[in-house]
């Protein structure tokens, strides 16, 4: 089994959701990222999404746009990101690592090169925001051949007719984008999330993780009660930005915010039972 499957299975066995955390690679600098990733793990993150910065992040709100700009201005390259992934894999042999980003930086040197290099450095999965199932041949086949999970996105606009196409070729987990919108916006209503997750789970055995707009431990806990995973991105990215601007260590800020989220996710279902 893959690291992603193992991790979601282990969390399920513990009767809890997985905490999936996103940071932009190279923000605020490539040198700072390894310690930030370590802090995510130390804080209790189960799955790490490492964002590949892009000049034109069309699906991202201001927080992640700024992170991409900081990263690129700090000189982050694709090589840096792959080296960061390789170092992470050496330090954390069992924690799943997923690269998330946009098509162009991923396919620039060819899909096969990208997929094989991901496998080589220990990347478990890839999330590409702007390759829908209709364009799967751009990257999907290469990832499957290299045994790297392709995590697809389902959204509130993905209806029952489309869902099978989204699931076909998706592995690792299914990422439910809970709001029709960009990252860092308001959270969707809890009832709509619950209904959507129920529909998705009826269509697949893959774990379903819910993200976009999840900021606080309370929100994370509410989602953790119904989904297999909770994704938090912009809130962590903002904490990195604030610490960096204040001249503090971003890794410390990251560890603190992730600990809070992790505690909430870990106990969400038991607290619900107690209540």
């Amino acid at each position: 089994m893959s690291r992603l499957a193992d991790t979601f299975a282990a969390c399920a066995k513990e009767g809890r959701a997985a905490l999936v955390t996103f940071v932009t690679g190279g923000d605020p600098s490539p040198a700072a990222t390894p310690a930030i990733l370590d802090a995510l793990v130390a804080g209790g993150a189960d799955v790490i999404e490492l964002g590949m910065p892009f000049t034109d992040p069309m699906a991202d709100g201001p927080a992640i746009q700024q992170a991409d700009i900081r990263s690129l201005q700090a000189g982050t390259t694709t090589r840096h990101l792959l080296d960061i992934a390789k170092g992470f894999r050496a330090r954390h042999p069992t924690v799943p690592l997923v690269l998330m980003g946009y098509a162009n930086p991923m396919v620039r040197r060819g899909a096969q090169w990208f997929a094989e290099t991901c496998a080589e450095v220990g990347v478990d999965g890839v999330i590409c925001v702007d390759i829908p199932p209709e364009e799967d041949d751009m990257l999907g086949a290469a990832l499957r051949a290299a045994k790297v999970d392709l995590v697809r996105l389902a959204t509130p606009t993905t209806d029952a007719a489309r869902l099978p196409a989204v699931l076909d070729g998706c592995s690792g987990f299914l990422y439910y984008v809970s709001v029709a919108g960009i990252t860092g916006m308001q959270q969707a209503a809890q009832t709509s999330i619950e209904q959507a997750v129920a529909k998705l789970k009826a269509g697949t055995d893959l774990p379903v993780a819910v993200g976009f707009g999840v900021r606080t431990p309370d929100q994370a806990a509410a989602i953790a009660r119904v989904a297999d995973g909770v994704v938090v991105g912009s809130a962590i990215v903002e904490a990195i930005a604030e610490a960096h601007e204040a001249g503090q260590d971003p890794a410390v800020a990251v560890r603190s915010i992730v600990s809070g989220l992790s505690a909430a996710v870990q106990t969400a279902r038991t607290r619900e039972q107690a209540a």
Partner: protein
Amino acid sequence: MTIANTLRAQPDARGHFGQFGGRYVAETLMPLILELEKEYRRAKADPAFEAELDWLMKHYVGRPSPLYYAERLTETIRQSAPAGHGAKIYLKRDELNHTGAHKINNCVGQILLAVRMGKTRIIAETGAGQHGVATATVAARFGLPCVVYMGARDVERQSPNVFRMKLLGAEVRAVESGSRTLKDAMNEALRDWVANVHDTFYIIGTAAGPHPYPELVRDFQSVIGHEAKAQIMEMEGRLPDLLVAAIGGGSNAIGLFHPFLDDPDVAMLGIEAAGHGLDTGAHAASLTGGEPGVLHGNRTFLLQDEDGQITEGHSISAGLDYPGIGPEHSWLHDIGRVTYESVTDREALDAFQLLCRTEGIIPALEPSHALSAVARKAREMKADQIIIANLCGRGDKDIFTVASALGVAI
């Protein structure tokens, strides 16, 4: 019956022009662009849609636009050409359209689609402001609220058009992210769209973006080429030898070229902006200076670095400094049907002034790039040959830019 040997049957069912085009968008948008495609097919088959489009094109836009023999320009070029050389130059006068550019052709078509789909809010991106003005215009005409995204740098460069859009009731949002120009405005429009898919129609201003946009923008702009073809047959009794058009995203060019693609004796030349010069790096020539990649929903030639980060385009013309190009042009370049060259800021400024003085027409800086190439080519061609250039916009919006480039205070 399947028609063999046509170059006019692109894209394929998946929206691909050869290896270019496609639908590289976030999942949130996929259902919507599939729906748009269906609605476009229905509209194309609906005589009522065509009738309304034709009516608006005639009475609101002012079509057909004249095909004008630029005799003094032709004569002036002949003076510096070898004996017997100096092709006849015709100008397709799309600068005479309502709002002063070809952009309105596409906007009229798209707003009719928006209305058919029951959308109640319009958004658009704009570079020079011509597409923004055209969108604000049709939104006013159909009584729909309109938000136009414009790079903050372009807001400064094109202030008259910003004011025009506001007069027309549109809200202009200055985009501060990235390079603060057209590509960033397009990113922001896409962000708005994903958050408002239920009620919003995105009127894309050039023949780019996810399928079906490159196809439908081309179809709406093809009125230029269809008219030009009929007009030149009437005036000269034969097809032209060369078509020339400027390329930002490529909508005016594909609009002129497409109806002629299957006429093998008609050569075509697309002109990209060479800015300060191709070797300076400060240009917007995606085909000459770029490589294939994925941006804004389609695979096409892009200005980018070795990691796939998009680099900034430069041109004196705010309508040309887009780092990409419509996917059909990438394909036509690939198969060699259309030739693509580039013209610098300086050359465009010279051509701008040449047209002002020889013909009494102030062109926009975008078609001034095409005109510079026309002068270059006309000299090499025989005097009995014919060139049609797309005069796709008028230059009122550019007089401040031109004055400052010429060192004149106004």
